[in-house]
């Protein structure tokens, strides 16, 4: 597969294999083993193997999958299913603990997809659970959780950094089960340039059946949050997977015509039209998400950056969103990712606050300072990894 133009952008055909099959899963019926070989590798690296299984199952293609490939899909399915069972179990515990708050708890991101039984939960593996409570109830929530063995291991600097500038507490971890919990009071840091109102998020959140205190964001806010997370954040490590989340949410909610009518106005209201514009643009480009033309135009009008910047961002995101696999990367990819990393900090904090933070990060506590570092820099030894792999 050579270079080809997809919607005006030159990309390598191989690089788009995973995305083109996610967009047209029926084509998985006719793949040869060579192509499956590449697909499994790309999907595994993007944490999308479970998603591929779900698409295969949904389109009743399992009998078309060659025998040697099947165990990989089954294995990913088992892992993902187990994960969502555990997330459901932990959520039940957490919502029980936080019932004493007597104040709504909004479940965010992946855990919300599980709780609301959205298609975006199928085949998805989450590294942590995200909850949001009103800012003035945060301290009380933390106290209640602490009693039930949810504690933070952040050191002094990290702890202070989180509490002073971030939109969440330092990550909490269950002492026995090691599940990670992010307790938010907003969806963006207090220092970010965009200022979505937490009050409005709470006001429109929807109750969840069976849990008196639990809420999930309304469909528009769920999409806006997912878009914000992807296009304002530094974790492009999961870019492909997060884009698939957005695509799945849009396809699901988009069945309701009203959703499209509400989406862009809500983006403007929440000060999030820029990430919404990127989200819709790249979902359409890369995953062929069926977004109505009129809505795309509306979103562009509200959120498109000046055209020179728009062109640059297209180039950057295009590379950052494809799966992190050698078959998908070109020489510009690494540069693109590091530029986006700097950008995400610039978006989250004014420069005078960012500089000391970057300085501290680089020279004092490179491993502990940021969540994302845990995944890449703090790599365990073989023994630790094997021990970790054994569930207790």
């Amino acid at each position: 597969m050579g270079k080809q133009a997809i919607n005006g952008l030159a990309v390598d055909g191989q690089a788009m294999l995973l995305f083109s099959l996610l967009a047209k899963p029926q084509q998985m019926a006719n793949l040869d083993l060579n192509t499956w070989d590449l697909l499994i590798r790309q999907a595994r690296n993007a944490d999308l193997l479970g998603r591929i299984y779900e698409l295969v199952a949904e389109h009743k293609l399992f009998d078309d999958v060659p025998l040697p490939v099947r165990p990989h899909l089954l294995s990913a399915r088992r892992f993902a299913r187990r994960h969502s069972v555990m997330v459901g179990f932990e959520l039940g515990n957490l919502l029980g603990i936080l019932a004493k708050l007597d104040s709504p708890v909004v479940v965010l991101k992946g855990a919300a997809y599980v709780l609301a039984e959205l298609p975006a939960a199928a085949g998805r593996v989450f590294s942590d659970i995200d909850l949001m409570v009103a800012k003035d109830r945060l301290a009380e929530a933390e106290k209640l959780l602490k009693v039930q063995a949810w504690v933070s291991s952040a050191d002094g600097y990290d702890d202070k950094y989180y509490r002073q500038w971030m939109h969440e507490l330092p990550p909490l971890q269950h002492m026995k089960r090691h599940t990670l919990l992010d307790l938010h009071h907003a969806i963006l840091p207090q220092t970010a340039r965009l200022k979505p109102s937490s009050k409005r998020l709470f006001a429109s959140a929807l109750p969840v059946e069976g849990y008196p205190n639990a809420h999930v964001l309304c469909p528009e806010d769920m999409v806006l949050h997912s878009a914000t997370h992807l296009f304002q954040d530094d974790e492009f490590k999961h870019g492909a997977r997060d884009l698939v989340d957005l695509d799945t949410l849009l396809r699901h909610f988009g069945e309701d015509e009203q959703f499209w009518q509400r989406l862009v106005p809500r983006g403007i209201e929440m000060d999030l039209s820029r990430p919404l514009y990127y989200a819709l643009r790249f979902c359409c480009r890369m995953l062929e998400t069926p977004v109505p033309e009129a809505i795309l135009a509306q979103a562009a009008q509200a959120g498109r950056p000046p055209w020179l910047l728009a062109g640059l961002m297209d180039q950057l995101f295009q590379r950052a969103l494809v799966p992190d696999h050698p078959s998908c990367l070109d020489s510009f990819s690494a540069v693109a990712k590091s530029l986006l990393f700097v950008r995400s900090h610039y978006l989250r904090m004014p420069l005078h606050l960012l500089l000391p933070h970057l300085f501290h990060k680089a020279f004092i506590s490179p491993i502990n300072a940021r969540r994302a570092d845990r995944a890449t820099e703090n790599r365990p030894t073989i023994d630790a990894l094997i021990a970790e792999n054994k569930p207790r």
Partner: protein
Amino acid sequence: MWASVSWFVDPANPVFFGVWPGENTVVAYQSTSGDTHMISAMGAAVLELLQTGPLSVEAIFAELFPDDALEVTALNHLRNNFLIHFEQLGLIKKTLS
């Protein structure tokens, strides 16, 4: 106060048993939380009863020993050494009925 308390195995976290002939200990596995416990055969019998729905300590006693009269020491033993212990382990839940 105690009389109104019942215990039950949470249907959302069911218990599976590994039982082998001639052994007086049983493996109890909770398929949702993933916790595995080794308990006495007597304890397993109690859990099996509580899978069917909430029961008070008196009702459990009557099911286990249908021919015996209720007796305070035995009830206390059942409550303190089985039910409270199981509750701490997360095997069963308490409800006020």
